[in-house]
């Protein structure tokens, strides 16, 4: 998919009203809403797994740990518990794209590699280097690019279109919170109702527990409907910590026992 979404006349954006307390109340309500238990909970957890962008964005990333991450992404839940489910993608820095592509190719996997780009995480670099960075990541085999927008433009009302919007880089002091997400997904709904174009949503940063992943799915289902529950329109940006917790919950569902972390293969 090259650029699918072209920005149109966006003056209505400035007319949108948000009532903070109502949104906070809604966020509370969604968090209290998860009533799915047993096999339904397990099914929801699997759905969460398929939406994960398994991510490592550390200064000390090497081909070694990127390789481990890629292998975990292709077999996210222990082989004896679950087969033929993968995460949605792996997500790495531009300089690690080539390593990831190589690892996945070697493992015969068609899992896409996503890369953050354009002066991540601040985005405060010049347009020229930003564009060049995107080009290089794509040349190395990245299928998806998470772009840090120029927030100066956004704050001054100069919006642009996109295929997916992401809560944050995950490197901020506050990242994916439910109230902020509610406002963002409602913007997606607004845009859909006005243009018919479906924009995807990716919460990222600080999502570490299986329970949180279920809240995110509930939020998407209730606000945007079932269509936004697939990896085509929904991604969870998370490290292997989230995956490990989900894996333990699934282990419990299959065996009836609680697992220790070391029982799960490392990422």
């Amino acid at each position, binding site marked *: 998919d090259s650029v699918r979404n072209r920005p149109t006349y966006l003056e209505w954006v400035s007319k949108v*009203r*948000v*009532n*903070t*307390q*109502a*949104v*906070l*109340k*809604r966020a509370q*309500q969604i968090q209290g809403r998860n009533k799915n238990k047993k096999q339904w909970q397990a099914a929801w957890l699997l759905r969460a797994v398929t939406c994960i962008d398994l991510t490592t964005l550390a200064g000390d990333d090497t081909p070694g740990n990127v390789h481990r991450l890629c292998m975990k992404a292709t077999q996210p839940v222990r082989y004896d518990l679950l087969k033929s489910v993968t995460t949605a993608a792996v997500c790495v820095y531009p300089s690690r794209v080539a390593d990831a592509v190589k690892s996945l190719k070697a493992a015969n996997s068609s899992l896409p590699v996503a890369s953050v780009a354009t002066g991540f995480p601040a985005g405060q670099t010049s347009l020229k280097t930003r564009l060049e960075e995107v080009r290089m990541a794509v040349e190395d085999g990245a299928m998806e690019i998470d772009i840090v927008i120029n927030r100066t433009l956004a704050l001054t009302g100069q919006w642009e279109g996109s295929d997916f919007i992401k809560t944050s880089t995950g490197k901020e002091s506050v990242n994916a919170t439910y109230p902020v997400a509610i406002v963002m997904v*409602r913007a997606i*709904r*607004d845009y859909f*109702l006005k243009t018919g174009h479906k924009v995807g949503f990716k919460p990222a940063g600080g999502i570490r527990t299986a329970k949180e992943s279920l809240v995110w799915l509930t939020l998407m*289902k*209730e*606000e*945007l*409907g*079932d269509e936004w529950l697939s990896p085509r329109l929904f991604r969870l940006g998370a490290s292997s910590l989230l995956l490990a917790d989900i894996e333990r919950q699934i282990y419990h569902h299959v065996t009836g026992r609680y697992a220790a972390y070391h029982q799960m293969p490392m990422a």
Partner: protein
Amino acid sequence: MTAAWSHGVYTYVLFSIFPQAWLESHSRALGLFIDGKFVRSADRQTCNVTDSSGGPVCSTVCAVDEDASLSVSSGASGFKAWSALPCHLRAKTLLRLVSSLQRHGQCLSELCDLAQSPSSPSALVRLLQYYSGWAQLRDSLIPDWTPRGVVVVVVSDDCSLYSLMLKVLPALAMGNAVVAIPGMGTAPPVLLLAQLFVEAGLPAGVLNVVTGSVLSLGSKVAQNPHVSYVTYSGNKKDGEILCRATAGMGVPVSLSLSLGATCPFIIFESADIDSAVDGVIETAFKKNRECQWMLCVQESVWDSVVARLKVRMAGMKSVPLLAEGDRKLVDAAVQEAQQQGATLIQPCPPSSSGAAYPPTVLCGVAPSCTCVVTPSPGPLLPLLSFRSHGEGVTLGNHSPHGQAASLWTEDLTLALEAAKSLSVGAVWVNSHSVMDPSLPISGHKESGNCIDGGKEGLFQFLRPSSSPPLPRSSPASVDYSKFGTAASAAIIPEGSNSSSTPRSYLQYVGGKQCKSESGSSVCVLAPGGTVLAYCPDGGRKDVRNAVEAAIKVQPGWMKKSPVARAQSLFSLAETLELKRRDMAVSLHSQTGLSLEKADMEVELSIAQLCDWAARCDKERGGVPSVPQSGSALSIPEALGVVGVVLPDSSPLLSMVSLLAAAVAMGNAVIMMPSPKYPLPALEFIQVLQSSDLPGGVVSIITGGRDQLTQALANHSVIKAIWYWGSMEGCQFLQHTCASPLKSLWLHCQEKDGGRDWAQPHASLQEEMWRQAVQWKSVWIPTA
């Protein structure tokens, strides 16, 4: 639920089995709770409480007359012990109940679920905490008021436990004893609560619970002469029946008719549309909902609201209907709306039959459509459009109900203006269904004549220490259709030959002096029995004219600044000062009072006018503190048009006091002077005419008391009647003013000498202004 969890898993496990254990300990047959213990006679009939699947939960007793009188005498002895306690001991007892309730919250909520009347223990805990505070502060913040005695709390079968306790707890906090008559589903949890309360230290007899058929039991219990007040919460139909059944017993009855009221849910174009739609989804299609919402959307955002409703409703499941016959009504309502051009938003087509129906929005119905006028049961939501802000408010107001409204806008000015103009008891801005005991809730129009919650709601359970309660009586056999229809001994005054021809007075309607519509007059006798004067024999048409004049000017009068109203009353006082001599002479010749004493009464009347003038800009509402974050306002508003049937005692002073109180708070008033002593009031017309009060704010009509009372009672515009008169008159008003509902302030002249108007206690004045206003609470939540 969350509150119960916080006590740890152990507590949770222990009490999660407790409701069944508790029921078993009573062999699943619950008795009445009288004098601190369960009472169960073998020969009583019982009725079965069932769970949602129709399975038996337990049985409750159907109380008979004997039980009713037992419960009241238990209440009377409980009241002695309870009211004798100092405030802080009552507060301490109520606080002990808080911890007991916290310990057994899970059990209580499970019992509520079993009996199909869900309730949140944390809300009850908040209620108890709030009212234990008021129990502590009663004497310091509400001096000169005493508890009424034994209070009967009646609720209809569909009323929630919270609404019941919203009356029981303030009654207890103010020092009353209570006989609670719960509905079918609330009976088991209330019986459990009563037991818990007594175990936690509430003296025996202070809270009694009798079960059975709510309506017949209500009047049975009220009949007992030890009962001093009856208050009801629930649906309109049962409330009216109770009102009629208790008429003439000499016990005040007030109604909170919150159930089943139609409430507007208004979305302005400046709203956070997504959050507003979210609110609709949350509240409009619930199986057990207290009110019937009517969605009003500004035309400019109509499409956007409809599109979001479609998205959010997709995938919603069908809602179970409450009764079997409901399906027919729902189908008929939907069909009728469709015939009138409404389109439907439904997540799925309804199953061909069965006791469930999908949530349904009826888009584009008109206010005249039956589904708006008389809403059917089931998850139906009418959606109406409006063009301007003003039309939105008008649409919301055009209903006999006045319970609550939810309005959505981010525009502060619009929110406050709309909140002010909506004639409802509670306005929820950018929110809905917010309940907290610190926010007074009082239905306007036909949604009740009673205030619950807040400091304002405490006064229904108190009376001024210096004023006697309504004397108890037994209902007489009154032919309600004939009351006040007998023609009075009217005569046409003839030009007499004597030099001291009795003067013919005129009455005062719409700012003009006039004869009665009938043209006839009645004699006014001097104390000696000679004909002193003739006054018009007013009737139904004169009242009608006065009301017509009043509704033209009252809205403007109410909107005038309190300072301007104060000025008008001060000028009235000044004019009275100028006519001081004439007034005194008129009092003297009418009542036989010495000139000196008559002058004293005029003096006191002037003081009353100045008093109320000064109060105009002082009596304000408040800013209640609510646990949630936001701003709450509690605002006293004028009632509208008030009818006053004046007492015989202190004819000038009583009239001026009541007139000043009503007018100061922004009401228009129609006054019926005492037929025995009408002259001071008629003389006072001179004072009114030379004041700057807009014509119509005060009308004075003379004539037969019963005739005029009947005319007031049968005019729907009149919101309240203050009555001094016969026991029979009180009975007639209680019976007739149940529908359309009016606020009544009744006094029987025959039995008590009436209040001493010359000694105005602070509490009497406070009572007067509380009678002259209705309350509105506005809730504006913020982050």
